[in-house]
Structures are given as C-alpha cells and as structure tokens.
C-alpha cells in the first residue's frame, strides 16, 4: 500500500511541479515531469485528455490494487485464513466486462473529436513544406505570406559541447542556425516529406508529430496561440545523427513576421541580382570566407592558403571573435565518402588557421554539411569560415 500511495503522490506532485515551474519561467522546453505546456488548441486538448486518462487510470489503480493488497494483507495463511473454494460467478464476470467497456466509451468520445480536428488541414493561411535530410531540415514556404522563402535548418550546438564536455546551454541540442518562423494566430499547414529515410517532425508544444516519408507528402497543422520560441526533435530513428536534428520554431506577431518576410525576400533578391563571383576569389575584407578545393581533394591551394591568412589576420585584429568552420562537397560521389571529405577539408582549414597563430579554442568545428546548399562543382567544394555568434 505504501508503495502505491508513494507512487500516486509522486505522479501528482510531478504534474503540479511541472505546471508550477512553467508558470514561473514561461519557458518552453523545461517541462520535467509532464507534457510540455500547450500553445495550440489541439495540444491543449491532448494535454487535457492525457490528464483525464491519468486520473481514470489512477482511480482504477487504487480500486484494483486496493482490493489486491487488502487480500494480500488479510487472506494469508499465516493469519489463519482458510481458503474458500468458490469460483465462477456470472454476475461478477459480466460486470467486470461491461464496466470497462463503458469507461472506454467515455475515453473514446473526446479522443474521436480530437482526431477529427487534428486531421482537418483545410483552409490554411500559410503552407510550409518541411523536408527531412540526414541530418537536418529544410523549409519551403509554399503558400501565403512568405511564399518562396527557402532555407536549411541545422543544429547549431557546437561540437565541443557534444563531444568534449564543454558547458552546455539551456537549449543544448534544441537550437538551430535558421529557425522556422511563423506568425501567431494563423493556421499553418506543414507538409512533410524526406530526402533519404523516414524522419518525423515533432514540436511537443504544438501537439504535432508527423512522419516525413521519402517520396510521399503527408500533412499536419497548427495554430500557435502565443508568441515565443518552441523546440522539438526528429522523432523517428533516421541514422547516426538522429539525435542531432532539432526543430526550432519562432512564433512572431503579425507585424514582426511581415518584417522577417521582407528581410528574407530582400536578401534573396540581393543574392539573385548579384553577379556570380569567380569562385577562386577570396573575400578579403572580412569574414565570411570561402576556401575552395579541387575535386575529391582536401589539400589547400595557394588561393586557399591566402584566404586563411586573411581570416587569421582578421582574428588577430578581433581578439574576442570566434569562427565556425563548415566543410562542404559537390553533389557527386557517395554520401559517406563526401561526408568524410567535407570533414577532412574542414580539418585542413582548421590546422592551417592554427598554424597561422589562431588559438584552437576560437575555432568551432561544425558537423560536415552533406548537402551542398546551393553550390555544385567548384562552388560546392569548399570550406566556409564564418564568425561565430
């Protein structure tokens, strides 16, 4: 009996504790005992149904194990209990079949309503396609304000925090370089698909988890009730870095969203109208710098060494700055070979930077990028040196 009561209390405290901590901080990811605080109507329905189920299960638990532990306590041979020999009682057996059926009907009713609501993806204000890659997401704004915007979203937690035990921030493994941005109060339809294997797009606070299946399109939707930053993970095992492809969603007010869209459009327009620079050129003024490589090679040529020299000079002039290094390859070749190549290129650049007098702790190695992110041929075979935030 004591175990049971303790367990029940543990659960109850857990629920209260989680709600209290959320109320205090208003944070989005630090739920500890219970489902994260919902920010959509659907997530709220799920939350309530979850609570309802917990309560029903707790009541059945108390009833059933109350009887069992009373029997364990009272009907012992050591207490002189003599075994009755009764068995089979049609009334009791019918009762304990019918009553659970009724309880189940009580659960099925609200669940059915929620299923139907979740599945209604019609009349969205904005439609965004989320594509899963090994191991990152990309987002294409397809319909509504912002249509045409496209970007990749990759884990931004530095490898040093993951591999080398560096201090980990609050959003460790839940932070990306380019978050998904949506307006508050609008119905956002998410189409999911994948490039390689099955991934799953999951944002707990929205009550949304939808597999992204290569070659097929699935959809889901959410309407965020309040502004904020909400985080989730890939929820389907997708290979080595399954645990390292988070989802970060920024819900903005309508006006801020409009500003963000305008900024994205302007940047995209500038990029489109700018003359295509000769790849071997090095942006000498400051970072970011790109260092280019020959096909299948990770050896630096003179232009590359010069570019690194410039970056090293800049770092010498900016003592507080840190840089990130990301390796890329072109589109040809096997995925695993390319990954290795991208990594080796990044390592070559890092080693040259260090040789040029940059302290190693000012260099953050990013995971090798498997997709060229727009570049192919020589434009793809590169290492990018950027200032770290």
């Amino acid at each position: 009996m004591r175990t049971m009561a303790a367990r029940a209390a543990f659960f109850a405290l857990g629920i209260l504790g989680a709600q209290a901590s959320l109320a205090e901080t208003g944070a989005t990811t630090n739920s500890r005992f219970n489902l994260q605080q919902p920010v959509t109507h659907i997530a709220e329905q799920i939350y309530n149904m979850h609570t309802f189920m917990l309560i029903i299960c707790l009541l059945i638990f108390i009833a059933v194990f109350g009887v069992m532990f009373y029997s364990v306590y009272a009907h012992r041979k050591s207490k002189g209990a003599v075994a009755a020999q009764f068995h089979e009682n049609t009334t009791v057996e019918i009762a304990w079949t019918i009553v659970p059926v009724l309880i189940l009907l009580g659960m099925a009713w609200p669940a059915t309503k929620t299923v139907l609501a979740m599945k209604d993806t019609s009349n969205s204000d904005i439609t965004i396609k989320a594509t899963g890659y090994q191991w990152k997401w990309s987002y294409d704004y397809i319909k509504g304000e912002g249509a045409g915007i496209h970007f990749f979203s990759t884990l931004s937690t530095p490898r040093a925090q993951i591999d080398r035990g560096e201090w980990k921030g609050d959003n460790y493994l839940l932070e990306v370089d380019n978050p998904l941005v949506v307006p508050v109060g609008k119905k956002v339809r998410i189409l999911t698909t994948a490039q390689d294997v099955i991934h799953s797009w999951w944002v707990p606070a929205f009550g949304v988890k939808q597999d992204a299946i290569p070659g097929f399109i699935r959809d889901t939707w959410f309407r965020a009730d309040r502004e904020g930053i909400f985080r989730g993970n890939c929820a389907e095992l997708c290979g080595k870095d399954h645990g390292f492809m988070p989802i970060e969603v920024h819900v903005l007010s309508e006006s801020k969203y409009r500003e963000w869209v305008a900024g994205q459009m302007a940047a995209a327009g500038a990029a489109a109208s700018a003359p295509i620079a000769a790849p071997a050129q090095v942006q000498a003024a400051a970072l970011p710098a790109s260092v280019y490589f020959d096909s299948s090679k990770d050896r630096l040529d003179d232009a590359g060494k010069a570019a690194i020299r410039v970056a090293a000079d800049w770092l010498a002039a900016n003592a507080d700055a840190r840089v990130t290094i990301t390796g890329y390859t072109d589109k040809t070749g096997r995925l695993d070979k390319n990954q290795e190549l991208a990594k080796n290129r990044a390592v070559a650049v890092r080693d040259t930077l260090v040789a040029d007098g940059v302290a190693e702790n000012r260099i953050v190695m990013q995971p090798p990028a498997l997709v060229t992110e727009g570049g192919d041929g020589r434009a793809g075979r590169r290492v990018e040196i950027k200032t770290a935030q």
Partner: protein
Amino acid sequence: MSAVTPEATLGHEHAHDHEHHYAPSGLMRWITTTNHKDIGTMYLVFSFIMFLSGGVMALTIRSELFQPGLQLVHPEFFNQLTTMHGLVMVFGAIMPAFVGFANWMLPLMLGASDMAFARMNNWSFWLLPPAAILLIGSFFVPGGATAAGWTLYAPLSVQMGMGMDMAIFAIHIMGASSIMGAINIVVTILNMRAPGMTLMRMPMFAWTWLITAYLLIAVMPVLAGAVTMVLTDRHFGTSFFSAAGGGDPVLYQHVFWFFGHPEVYIMILPAFGIVSQIIPTFARKPLFGYASMVYATASIAILSFVVWAHHMFVTGMPAPTQLFFMYATMLIAVPTGVKVFNWIATMWRGSMTFETPMLFAVGFIFVFTMGGFTGLMCAIAPADIQYQDTYFVVAHFHYVLVAGSLFALFAGTYYWIPKWTGHMYDEKLGRWHFWASIIFFNITFFPMHFLGLAGMPRRVPDYNPVFTDFNEIATIGAFGFGLSQVFFLYIVIKCIRGGEKAAASPWEGAQGLEWTVPSPAPHHTFETPPTFDPVAHGAHH
C-alpha cells in the same frame, strides 16, 4: 543443469524394461538429444546467455545516457546497441525462454511421454545457436551490426552494411525455429493429453501456449516476408519500400507490425499462463474463472491481428483508419482486465503464502498492470501523437516486457525448479532476488515516463541537460537490476548443485500432473499415460 541424466532414477510408477537404447554422453548427448527435458534445459540456458548479452548492451546504453554529451560510444554504435538489445532480448531471450518452459513442462502437465515431434524438437533448438552467432557476430563485420532499430524500418535498413544481412538471416533462422517449436506444441497439446483431460480441463499454461503457438505460426512467416523484401531491396534491385521505384516505405511498417503486434502477445500470453498456475497454488484456491480466462486469452489473440497500425499513428493515416485502430486497440483492455480481475478474485479469501514464485506472480500483476495503463494511454490516438517515439513508450513496453514476461519467467523458474533439479532453491535468496528486481526495475523505468512526457525522444545517444537527473536515476537502477540478475544466476546454480531435497509435490497447494512424478523428474516420464482425475489434478471447474 546436468542433474538430470539419462541414467537418472526412473519413476517408481514406471517399471521399465527397455532402457537399453543408445545414450551418448558428454557433448553428443546434448547435440543428439530428443528428450523434451534436455531440450527444455538447453532452451533455458541459451535464453539466459542471450539475456545476459542483451543486458550488457542495455547497460552500455544506460552508461552513455548517464550524462548529456557523448562520452563512451559513438552515435552509430549507440544505434547498433539499441537495435541489437531489442533483437537479442525479443528473439534470443524472451521467446526461447518460453519455448523452454513449454518443452520442460507441457509433457509433464499433460501427461505425455515427450513432445510430439522429438527429432524436430532437437532441430528447432539447434537452429538457435547459429542464429545467435550470426546476430552477435554482426558487431564484428565492416560497418558493424544493424543500427536501424529492432523494427528495422525501411529505407533506413536498406542503407545499412552487411550486419543487416546477417540480422535478416538470423531472423529467418530463428523464425523457422519458432514455427517448428509452435507446430510441435500445437500437436502435442491437441493429441497427447492424458485420457480424461479434455481441452477445457487442461492447465491454463497449456491453453495460453496453444493460442500462442497459433499466433507464432500465423505471424512469423509475415516477419520473414518483411525482412526478405528488405533483403531484395538491398541487393536485387526491387523497390518494395522505395518510392522512386513505385514502392512505399510505409508498407514495411504495415507488414512488420502485422507481425509485431501479435508478437507482443506471443511474449505475454505464456506469461499469463505461468501466473495462472502459480496464483491458485499459493492461494490454495482454484482459479476463479477458468473458462473466462480461456476466452479472454483467445479474444486477446484474435484482437491482436486487427490493431497493428496503432504503432503507426504518426505516419499520417486517414482519420477513419486512425479511429478504427484506436477503438480496436482500446478493446484489448477488456479481456486483459478480465485476466487481472480473475487473478485478484483467485487471491481473494484464499489462504496465501508468499514464497518466491508467488512474490514474482503478485509483483507481475502489480507492475504489468501499470504497463497496461500506459498501453491504454498510448491507444488513444491523439495522446499517442505526443507519446510516440519518446521515452514514455520505452517505459511502457519495458513495464510489460520486463515486469510482465521476464517476471513471469522468474516466477515459473522458482515454481518448477524443484521439479527440474530435485532441490529446493534458497528461499531467502529468492526473496532477495524478487525485492531487488522489483525495486531496481522501478528505479530504472519509472523515471522514463517523465522523460518521455517532457519530450525526450527514444533512440538518441544524447539529450538536453533538463533530462539529466532522471537519466542518472534510470542508469543507477539499471545497474542494480543487472546485478540482481547475476544474483539470480547464482541462486539457480546453487540450486542445481544442491540444497534441500524436493518432494514430488513441494508446494502445499500445487495440483496438476507434473507434481505426480518424482523430483527431479526422471529422464522418461508418463511412458504409459497417467489417469487424469479432474478433482485431484486441479481441474474441478
């Protein structure tokens, strides 16, 4: 477990005049044996070895998860460990252990002289070690073992190295072994019962195994089909699971779970059978509703074929499909509830004692039912959207598989080990084993409910620091649980080597034919069918 030898004392009621056939000794005795007791012993030893191997993998996983960050293993190896832990425990430990119990106990409980197909019985066991070597050996080939999760979802499983092919062949072999074992069990139960033992007078363990065997025959070929399609997609240019060639990755999941959900009941129905033998014995009172237990078992088995897609609520099925699978799944709670109520009604106004088998049986009811509750929660499709692929699900299925299947296996071992070895186990140590197991089990798996709800996905080698404390608790519990099982091995070895001499029927309330033969059970039993007396042998319902 060599206490039982071909030369062992013969049962007093069986005067033998033909004990002159060739009986090899040493290793050849075990390789050539067709004796159900020898084969049962080998199944149990094999499954325990696999249980320890899978346990080492689990502890490596838990060690990596003790702290956030990557400390011990690379993500790729971590995925290999989670995958192999699942495959080894399901196909190497739990399933063969129940077949071991069936081999040892069914002929004794039914009054049969052996299993129906004694030579096939030998073959179905000896298929397992090569399968295990393929499976474990895949860790050492280039690319390592398969890391696609025990569910081996395509297209991820199509990407794997040759370890995947070894796992596929291992599954084929183990599947063939299971099907042969199942056919043997069906034929034995249907044809070799003692005169007078009608189907509705069989021990509950025989009923649950009969139904389980049919499930095995129905679904193991489905699994073989699924992994064969993966194999041909990998090597022979087919596109069953590739959209580019006109296939569908989700097809794999449908086929897999059509096997996978009945598989869940394959691993729990025999456990229900063991518990249904033990509770009446130690309550000294007949099983409350024998007939309703049989019907509940059959209902669970039939329903298990129409609920598979509840594993796939997040794949994006149409609403009517989701609703159908949600309702069908919820319905399973009814016959499962009937079973739990029956056990408790059997205990009610009994005259109970709590030897180790009874402790594990009551512990089973208590902890398994908690897994049942979380199962019901997962059946609710909208809520499952949040639970799916999180540690909540990991907690759920360990509550039913460890506290369910494994605890029932422990209960059954303590219950029947006097019959196997002729010695009583050390009761004090048995109780220690029970309390250590149930406490460490809960320390390991209860915090996982919280982790999953708060948003920790399963199958990840690293996590946000907010999940650290519960992961630390789980890891500590896991090591305690693992050590408790080494302690169990010690208890069993001690019991084999000696101990208080066990009577033919060491339990006061035990009924059934297995208790009419001496302990240890002679090498050959019931060569002439026993007389089955429903009243004396516990079938007075």
